[in-house]
């Protein structure tokens, strides 16, 4: 099957809207501790709206590539086979983990993803602060192996949609902790708060989509600690609420750095090094910030 019979994200839009209204209402009446700043909310929701438009520009190419790979598949997974859905649930989520890790640890893909982290708030509107440049950064290619193994383009699209819908509800401070068994297996508001935090201890942790097991397996898991409250945003927060700045600032930064590069090594470092990489090490990366924090902690 090539075309998905339904789109989980489209079906979930009314739920998104009602959930945001509920979160705001609960905070308004002091039932839960969420915060919404109007200009920040406007930026987040505008980025979500814009990402739908921007996505159309590259959706055709991504879809065509997926079909081409699927036509050269090595197996065929029947769309109606239950085991196929179990398999794609795990394989798609594993793909998402590595996509997400790449999007944080290599600057070229961070440039496309940074806008999602650029809010100093953590609420359901932040979940909708989606990328405008993810398509052109080419990360959709990471899902092509699923088509090569025989999962149909429709099945891949549906599972990606399910993952995106799942990840919406975890962008909240309204839920403190889920039951222990759930926290052990699934990505939760608590785990994802850590992911959005800019405290050195929390940087580059909890890349999970639906299952937190991948972070536990690959050594990137960090539980939320009561003694260290999450500070949200990016290491160098934005100076205003301009959505164009949020969408493109890192790309512009890359362009400026490339213009100053003096060797192929510097070009490669500025493009594919960790965010914050510089030839002389004068800028801060997540690793240096974490090391500095560790040293200070040990020094007392």
């Amino acid at each position, binding site marked *: 099957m090539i075309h998905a019979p339904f789109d989980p994200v489209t079906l979930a839009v009314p739920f998104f809207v009602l959930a945001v209204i509920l979160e705001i209402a609960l905070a308004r009446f002091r039932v839960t501790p969420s915060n919404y700043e109007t200009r920040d909310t406007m930026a987040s929701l505008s980025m979500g709206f814009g990402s739908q438009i921007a996505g159309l520009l590259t959706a055709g190419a991504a879809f065509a590539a997926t079909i081409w790979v699927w036509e050269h598949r090595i197996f065929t997974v029947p769309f109606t086979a239950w085991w196929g859905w179990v398999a794609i649930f795990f394989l798609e989520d594993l793909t998402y983990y590595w996509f997400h890790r790449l999007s944080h640890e290599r600057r070229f893909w961070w440039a496309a993803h940074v806008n999602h982290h650029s809010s100093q708030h953590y609420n359901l509107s932040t979940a909708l602060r989606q990328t405008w440049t993810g398509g052109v950064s080419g990360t959709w290619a990471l899902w092509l192996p699923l088509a090569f193994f025989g999962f149909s383009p429709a099945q891949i699209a549906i599972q990606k949609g399910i993952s995106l819908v799942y990840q919406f509800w975890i962008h909240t401070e309204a839920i403190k902790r889920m039951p222990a068994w759930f926290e052990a297996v699934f990505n939760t508001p608590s785990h994802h708060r850590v992911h959005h935090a800019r405290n050195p201890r929390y940087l580059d942790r909890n890349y999970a989509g639906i299952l937190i097991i991948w972070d536990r397996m690959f050594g990137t898991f960090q539980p939320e600690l009561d003694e260290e409250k999450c500070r949200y945003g990016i290491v*160098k927060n934005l100076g205003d609420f301009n959505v164009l700045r949020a969408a493109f600032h890192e790309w512009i930064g890359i362009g400026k750095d490339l213009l100053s590069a003096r060797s192929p090594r510097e070009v490669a470092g500025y493009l594919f090094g960790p965010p914050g990489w510089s030839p002389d090490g004068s800028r801060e990366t997540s690793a240096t910030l974490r090391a500095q924090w560790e040293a200070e902690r040990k020094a007392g």
Partner: protein
Amino acid sequence: MQTAGSAVAVGVLIAFAAWAKIAKPMSPLTDARARALMAEEFPGRPIDALWVATDGAGALARSGAAALVLCEVGDGYVARHIPWAQAVASSFRDGVLRLDLSDVAAPAARLAFDAWPPLGAEVEAANTKPAKGRKTAS
């Protein structure tokens, strides 16, 4: 149709968020609060002197050869460091210091002071005046 519906929903949600007035509570910075924020934003950098903006919407600190800048944005703060000499030489007009942060993510900061640059700054500018802002030395 779907796009138009999404646009309407975005408008409704923004209006609802504005009505709720649930931004983080912000009060003018005190010296202690500014120091705490500076410690979070610039860990390991000692503060030689600190000036809190007269409206409490930011602060500037000297840390060796660097100026640590903290500026209110919405209900949060943005922080950057620039060379101290650059901060001292920055444009000061009508009680507002305009700092070029040389960063596309946060190009500039504006801090309100009674006067700038501060007393004792090592500048040779002929129009140097002592600062009258709230200063504390560590």
